[in-house]
């Protein structure tokens, strides 16, 4: 994977063009972000370190020992970087920690039919690519990933394709996927969307100058109490 940053800090994402990796089928409907990162880790002040706590309550048993029944703990899925999801993955809380944890754990691509809106957007902000495909396609991928040990997919964002990689490195199944052009371009180029917005500084100023004095509501706030 190509890594490129266009500025320090900000919402700069790493550029993302292609990724090939081991696939893990995560066969649960409506996975909410409370499961992806439970609340007790939301008080951290950083964006790092959440990989260890991904799916914490499902992944570990007492004393932070791996739960052998949990899919991510199975030996055949160690090193996986592509997560197959069921519908409405990432629903509930807007916590961006969910995207930080998936990324911290090593996931670069999520493939499903639908994702919850806020989670979907949070993924793009953090260079994790969520791909939406059709129900019959995801069912096919689940089936193959479960049946084939070492099942790998190659994802090409520029071409908008997901291709099967067989053990001899040759491609089999290929799906095309749709994606919003703006999101795709931001990710391909590693764009900082804040920097992009600030390029419209004159227009923002113009809007503030015209719009805010026109109606008292839009202007600076006055609060009739002093202190707090």
């Amino acid at each position, binding site marked *: 994977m190509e890594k490129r940053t266009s500025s320090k800090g900000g919402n700069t994402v790493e550029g993302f063009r292609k990724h090939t990796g081991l696939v893990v089928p995560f066969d649960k409907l409506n996975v909410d972000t409370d*499961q992806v990162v439970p609340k007790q880790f939301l008080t951290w002040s950083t964006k790092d370190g959440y990989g260890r706590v991904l799916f914490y309550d499902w992944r570990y048993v007492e004393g932070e020992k791996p739960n052998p029944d949990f899919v991510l703990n199975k030996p055949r899925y160690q090193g996986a970087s592509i997560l197959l999801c069921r519908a409405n993955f990432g629903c509930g809380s807007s916590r961006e920690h969910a995207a930080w944890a998936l990324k911290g754990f090593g996931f670069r691509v999520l493939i499903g039919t639908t994702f919850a809106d806020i989670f979907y957007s949070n993924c793009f902000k953090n260079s994790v690519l969520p791909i939406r495909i059709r129900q019959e396609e995801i069912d096919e991928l689940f089936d193959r990933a479960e049946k084939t040990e070492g099942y790998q997919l190659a994802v090409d964002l520029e071409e908008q394709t997901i291709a099967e990689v067989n053990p001899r490195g040759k491609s089999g199944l290929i799906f095309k996927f749709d994606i919003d052009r703006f999101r795709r371009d931001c990710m391909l180029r590693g764009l900082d969307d804040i920097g992009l917005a600030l390029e419209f500084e004159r227009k923002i100023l113009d809007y503030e100058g015209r719009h805010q004095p026109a109606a008292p509501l839009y202007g600076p706030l006055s609060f009739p109490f002093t202190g707090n």
Partner: protein
Amino acid sequence: MPSLIYIDRHIVHDISAQAFAGVEAAGRKVRRPDLTLAVVDHTVPTSHRELPILDPHASVLLSSLDRNCREWGIRLFDLKSIFQGIVHIIGPELGFTQPGLTVACGDSHTSTHGAVGALPFGFGVSEVEHILATQCLWRKKSKNMLVRVEGRRARGVTAKDLILAVIGKIGIDGGVGHVIEYAGQAIRDISVEGRMTVCNMSIEGGAISGMIAPDEKTAAYLEGRPFTPRGKQFEDTVASWKDLVSDPGASFNKVVELDAAEIAPQVTWGTNPGMVIGVNGKVPDPGSYADVQDGQATERAIEYMGLRPGMSIEDISIDHVFIGSCANARIEDLRIAASVIEGKKISPHIKQAMVVPGSMLVKAQAEHEGLDKIFKSAGFEWHDAGCSMCVGMNGDLVPSGGRCASTSNRNFEGRQGKGARTHLVSPMMAAAAAIAGHFVDTRGMDVPDAE
């Protein structure tokens, strides 16, 4: 390319450290501190605020918010403020939220503000940073969905029951990609505070946001609030709201209709807000689902919840009660709950029953009306304002295996504590369950109709 939307009001809370750090790391400035308001709610203690914060991480978060607000000149309602409370309670309460404005907050329940006809946006920390730095947000026009609720609610059926019934009908992903407009006689009939409960849970139906057209109730609610313009300015503003309604015959991407008269008090039985049924109903049988995955999800939820298929909802015994959260912790919620329990005691097998007002102003008003005494003499704890047991980040938790009747908005696994079992209900249902020790039908109960 998406549009760059100007944000008229931005509220930040205590889980914002990464956003301020990002602004600083990029050498940027907070563009409009005067359009920004900060408040602490997610991690704050709801009792003994004079003591140090136990969680060292939360303590760092709170002090860094304080430092950032001082540095950038953002008004902060901290733990000592009489205006402190849950973001989505204080926005409308202080008149910070007004019809026709874009309101943004790094929290999925920002949709609450749509109840007064604002257009709310909720999101993650990256967007908080984006708004701090630019006062704008990149957005594509969303799809729209009309949820029309006609008819009259039965007595004892509240705004919470309406929205739970809506979610039960559309499913927890029914609103994905859409902003919902709630309309119809039953929506107009409920109070502005009740409308906040409805809009609050739009995200639980998967929607991006939720809105209700402003009317004379909205004007009466907002008039005189601290941030609301005064006199002629207010009158002019109210006159401009006539444009903030959908045109007759406007087309929507999706239309859902419900009859309020058919809605019973609702109780969730499972581990997402769409797993909900009327109080006279039964826990479903996983075998009854046509879809295999739905059946499996139901089976797993019933197992986690420690229930049996076919069990009557009214036979479910509870041992915890939580009245609070941005869904239901406004003064009307407390009045309704208090009227149910007045002169009664909570059931002896309730281990903990707590009331956490949504803001310190709500708390003060409730105390002025003597509601605190009603709650306390019934056996409830009376707390300071915050998110508390809805999200459990401040140490207010339901123990593993505990079963809670909760007026909050999420019943996910572990939401109120690892292994905790949450049943989402209205404040009236929670109060009635606290007295009975199990769920009971609130229809026909003799309480003053606050709505």
